[in-house]
């Protein structure tokens, strides 16, 4: 298992390297350059040239590429963001935890809600509950996140005064947060993250519930379920002990795959709810041609895919002895 994990990580290195290279040339091929944000009659062309020189943009592309790669490989250095006037690393270290927070909660929501509803629907197959949740799940699954976000924002974040229960943007109440008690701060964070994580997580939860239902129905037909019943176990033990663990295994894989999806879903959710995360950094970087930032952000997105898959594999091995012990 260890060699397997190490191997997977080793394999992903050239993959990420290739990703970096393609992204590098892609973003440089795009029209414009980072100094376009200084595009302004106040600024002499000479001043823009100064900026280009400071950031080394006047050098041939090949040289820039080699320098960049050298920095990344030798010093783990991702350069300076021209638009944000700070090291790329700093900006990412500030934004990444926020996105992780959001995604993690969305993931939690996705799993708890999705798995819970999926189990109930499977156990009560063809019941009213089953049909109702299936249709509801499908509706949320089919809803674009920007639209859901917009509707939630309008309904619960001030559009309708009577139901103004949640703040419309940000991570904390920026004015009062500091003067709050620990519990109050926690509550403050909770009400701020609720709508964005709901928007991000509910579609995925709907997807998971559909999968979960299907998997559990599949597992319920397995021979070992019959064996368990023949032992005289109660239906609850049969379903929740013998069935659930097996049905959860494919869900783990899906979860690993959904991690990067949550991350890219964050692009839109962060925009709608003003959440200070990677999604916004990514979009800004692309539009502003903030080369270093763009590359680093995309590298992280790429790494997220690798990590998601790896985590799924490891978790899978943890619950499935067939993989763990071979």
């Amino acid at each position, binding site marked *: 298992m260890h*060699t397997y994990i*190490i*191997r997977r990580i*080793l394999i992903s290195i050239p993959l990420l390297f290739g990703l970096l290279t393609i992204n590098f040339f892609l973003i440089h091929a795009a029209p414009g350059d980072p100094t376009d944000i200084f595009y302004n009659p106040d600024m002499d062309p000479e001043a823009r040239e100064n900026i280009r020189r400071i950031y080394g943009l006047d050098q041939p592309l090949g040289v820039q590429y080699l320098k960049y790669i050298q920095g990344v490989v030798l010093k783990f250095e991702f350069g300076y963001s021209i638009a944000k006037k700070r090291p790329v690393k700093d900006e990412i270290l500030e934004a990444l935890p926020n996105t992780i927070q959001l995604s993690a909660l969305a993931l939690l929501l996705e799993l708890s809600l999705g798995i819970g509803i999926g189990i109930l629907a499977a156990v009560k197959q063809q019941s009213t509950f089953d049909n109702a949740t299936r249709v509801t799940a499908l509706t949320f699954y089919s809803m674009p996140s920007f639209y859901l976000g917009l509707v939630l924002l309008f309904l619960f974040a001030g559009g309708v005064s009577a139901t103004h229960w949640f703040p419309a943007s940000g991570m904390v109440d920026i004015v009062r947060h500091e003067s709050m008690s620990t519990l109050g701060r926690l509550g403050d964070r909770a009400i701020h993250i609720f709508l964005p994580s709901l928007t991000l997580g509910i579609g995925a939860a709907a997807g998971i519930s559909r999968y979960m239902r299907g998997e559990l129905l599949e597992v319920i037909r397995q021979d070992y379920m019959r064996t368990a019943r023949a032992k005289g176990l109660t239906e609850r033990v049969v379903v929740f002990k013998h069935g659930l663990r097996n049905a959860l295994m494919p869900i783990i894989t899906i979860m690993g795959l959904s991690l990067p999806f949550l991350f890219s879903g964050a692009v839109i959710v962060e925009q709608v709810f003003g959440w200070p995360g990677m999604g916004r950094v990514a979009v800004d970087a692309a539009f502003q041609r903030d080369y270093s930032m763009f590359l680093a952000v995309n590298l992280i997105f790429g790494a997220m895919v690798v990590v998601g898959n790896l985590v799924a594999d490891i978790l899978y091995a943890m619950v499935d002895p067939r993989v763990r012990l071979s």
Partner: protein
Amino acid sequence: MSTEASKNSEVLLRVEHLKNYFPVRQGLLSRVTAYVKAVDDISFEIGVGETLGLVGESGCGKTTVGHSVLRLINPTEGTVLFQGKDLTHLPAAELRAMRQDMQIIFQDPFSSLNPRMTVGAIIGEALAIHGRGDRKERAEMVRDTMQKCGLDPAYINRFPHEFSGGQRQRIGIARALVLSPKFIVCDEPVSALDVSIQSQIINLLVELKERYNLAYLFIAHDLSVVQYISDRVAVMYLGKIVELADSTELYRNPLHPYTQALLSAVPVPDPTRRKQRTLLPGDVPSPLNPPSGCRFHTRCPLAIDICKKVEPRELDVEGHKVWCHVVEEQITGSPPSS
């Protein structure tokens, strides 16, 4: 060598030192660390119109032999001479042409038929591949073959799922037969069928063989069926043939302790004949790390020291071949050399 290809002097298929090793990759660089020795140096011959039974427990490599003989998988080593031509090194085009004379029938009548093709297309596919006749002639040939295999030609446009297991197996046989091959590998053709259907298929196979002078390599785990249908029987254990003899001879006078155990394990549908059986201890070892010396020694009731170290050699008693140190000692009277 007297019973080699006993009935006909002409040898149709000769397999020599066939080996099939599957590499096992492990570690960081996925280096080959071991081989699964599915088939390890076996040789046999099949004469024109002869049936050779190949029997053994699951995982002993009998199916691999069947597939290697037809070069559905490439053997690691050894030669397969079919009508004098070495199949193992034949170029793809020539091999394809050769396939007209050698065919295969599979075990699972559900998985062996393409569910998206009609019976006519399945049976006629071989004709289409080898460019036999035009469309109309081919349909005629298909109908003809269906008739021979006990299928109503009216069903030519139906799909496999519309048939029962026995009928599907007939379709599989018709597919193999339509090119009028000389040799058919029957890979467990009846083991997936109901008891009452098995006999229909066995009888059909026997009948076809006699009618068209077919040679079969009949692979099965059911000793009674193999013994019934075969001229000669080879018993395999862990990738090796341990005994090869005329089928009645093998039943009457099994020499190898494994063959003896196998025979005694087969339940006989006659309550009056409840017999004392030799029970083999344990399970078949993994072909990944087969035991040293004689591969059977870990389960053999007769095993002696030398069995652990030295591989037994072929002992040929009037065409009854056996690979066993103990038998060798009993028959030749001399202790096996090391």
